[in-house]
């Protein structure tokens, strides 16, 4: 263990900081969950790409900088220090991208990764179906082979970004006789393909960030299948691992929230309860713990290790931390907490953040599912119904 940055790492941090200070929008963008905000965030993706910051860990051949995970963490720290906007393409760069890197053909890597890193193609996920939420193996949307195409029929729901995005990815049942985890195939599709209908769903905050997707005999070329036909479950588990594990929620995000919470506490100290004070300290401690753990996991991966079911511990930790921090902020704001805009006209970011934080323990596999995975795969407890 050596807890000091090299001169090269420090220089890299300075480079990121200088760029972010110049380029991060001074005013917060409108929420990503509406048309206006989506367009602003896509514009930001392209600004990032102009500095070659789209996805720093990817090889240069695919629009990245070929950096290692410590440099990625430094990048993320500086990104959140500067108050960088949410990433419109997170489904692409953090989830699908690493999956394509692992399972894609050379042709698929060239075709999909560079436009993803450059923010030219924005991706939606299409995991859930009305009858397949936590129980993802219950997927029933079909993809039937017809020559060099799949013909997709069915329905996906809670598809993040699907209201406005360009492309989507999801699992479809290619073997009609198959059950559960078998016979599923991971397919990428252009959201503007004829036969796809998007129905935006109004979310808790009133905006429409996610959507239902209806597939009515949608023809998708066979070359859009990732890994082999019937390999979908393995591919999806890898994607879910990226989602719950290292990439989707880097520690900088929570450390920045904890810092803002400390500042909020100072403003409201006179009327704050001792419990709120302790909750603020807990927020800082937990965000730091998450950062130390992430540095340890990054070091392990760089030494040739892998992240497995431990990703479930991560997902439980960051999602419940995020909710706790925003709950504390709401308590500190007191009667102002319900205001969508404060007296000075500024958006109540804590309220927006609190609402968003309530989705954390649900998306990317509900925390109940994560606790089952932890208990069964890490602790070795028997599966339900074993006897």
């Amino acid at each position, binding site marked *: 263990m050596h807890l000091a940055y090299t001169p090269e790492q420090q220089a890299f941090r300075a480079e990121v900081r200088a760029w972010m200070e110049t380029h991060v929008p001074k005013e917060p963008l409108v929420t990503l969950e509406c048309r206006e905000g989506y367009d602003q965030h896509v514009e930001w993706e392209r600004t990032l790409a102009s500095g070659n910051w789209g996805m720093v860990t990817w090889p240069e051949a695919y629009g990245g900088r070929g950096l290692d995970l410590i440099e990625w963490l430094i990048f993320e720290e*500086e990104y959140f220090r500067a108050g960088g906007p949410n990433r419109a393409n997170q489904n692409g760069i953090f989830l699908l991208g690493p999956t394509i890197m692992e399972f894609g053909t050379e042709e698929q890597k060239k075709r999909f990764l560079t436009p993803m890193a450059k923010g030219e193609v924005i991706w939606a996920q299409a995991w859930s179906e009305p009858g397949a939420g936590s129980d993802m193996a219950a997927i029933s949307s079909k993809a039937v082979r017809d020559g060099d195409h799949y013909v997709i029929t069915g329905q996906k729901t809670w598809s993040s970004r699907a209201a406005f995005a360009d492309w989507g990815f999801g699992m479809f049942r290619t073997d009609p006789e198959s059950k559960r985890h078998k016979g599923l195939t991971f397919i990428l599709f252009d959201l503007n393909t004829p036969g796809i209908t998007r129905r935006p769903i109004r979310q808790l905050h009133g905006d429409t960030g996610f959507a239902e997707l209806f597939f009515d005999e949608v023809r998708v070329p066979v070359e859009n299948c990732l890994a082999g036909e019937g390999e979908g479950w393995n591919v999806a588990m890898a994607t879910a691992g990226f989602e719950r594990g290292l990439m989707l929620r880097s520690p900088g995000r929570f450390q920045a929230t904890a810092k803002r919470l400390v500042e909020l506490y100072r403003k409201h100290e006179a009327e704050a309860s001792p419990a709120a004070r302790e909750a603020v300290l807990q927020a800082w401690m937990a965000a730091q713990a998450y950062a130390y753990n992430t540095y340890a996991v990054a070091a392990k991966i760089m030494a040739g290790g892998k992240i497995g079911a431990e990703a479930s511990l991560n997902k439980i930790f960051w999602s419940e931390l995020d909710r706790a921090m925003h709950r504390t902020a709401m308590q500190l704001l007191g009667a102002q907490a319900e205001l969508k805009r404060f007296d000075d006209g500024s958006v109540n970011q804590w309220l927006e953040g609190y609402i968003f934080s309530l989705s954390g323990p649900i998306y990317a596999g509900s925390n109940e599912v994560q606790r089952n995975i932890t208990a069964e795969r890490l602790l070795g407890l028997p599966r339900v119904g074993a006897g």
Partner: protein
Amino acid sequence: MDMLLTEDQLSLAETVRDYLAGTHGPEILRRLDADGNRDPAIWQGLVDMGLTGLLVPEAHGGLGMGLVDAALLATECGRACLAEPLVDTAFVGVPWLLAQGKTEQLADIAAGRVTLPLPHAINPWVADGEGAPLQSVDPLRNLFASANDNADPYLLDLGALMSAAQLVGLADAMLHQAVEYGKIRTQFGQPIGAFQAIKHQLASCAVAIEFAKPVVWQAAQALQDERASAAVHVSHAKVAATDAAMLTAETAIQVHGAMGYTYEVDLHFWMKRCWALAGAWGTRAFHLKRVDEAVLGGTLPIGPEHTFA
């Protein structure tokens, strides 16, 4: 920047873990509880492993290792619920003597001939010392009334750090015991560990322990590196480890049901050590206050760019 525990560190910890698992099982705890609490043969085994000399410089007959190594082994001592005063003498006392340039006892400590009681103003007792005996809830803890006027801050940090390291080991062990019990205890026609009501509680313990450990290793490295902020990190570690261990202790007894409330199930040894160490070398309130002074008081830079401040 490298937060990786080395192969050497992990394999040393594994060696000690295996040794203690083989020689210091629950039957030993029960024997010690029935008969005198301390056993020179157990102590000699630890000496023969080189553990009393772990932090003693090679020039004085020790292994010359660092606080991260010691914290990893303190975790193993917690896991085994070790009763001998190894952690106090070898992992807290030795670096404290070294910091003062006092080297005359080191060879004797490494050779196992001397143990170091560590009176400190933060504690209302001294462990394995002299004086009027006090009775701890932990049946294997030997406490004595003592005039503690030493308020040395480095000794306090060492004591708190090594308590935190033991607490995560204790927590690991209690979680393991609860999991094993959940596999074999059958009710309603299935192992109780198959019920989500049990699984989810134990999973929450696993989360708390997983995220307490790197805080402890980070604090050990900070103290080793003499970082100006080391005391804050030690306090963070003590709070995180205490919370994880207390949660796991309460969950483990709940999973054991009425069996967990008996003296005959081994769990109680670990649980009581956890209660004892939770308040030793600074209470939760004491350590939280030090974090408070740093974070809300503004003496420590915070935010994403200050992960290792």
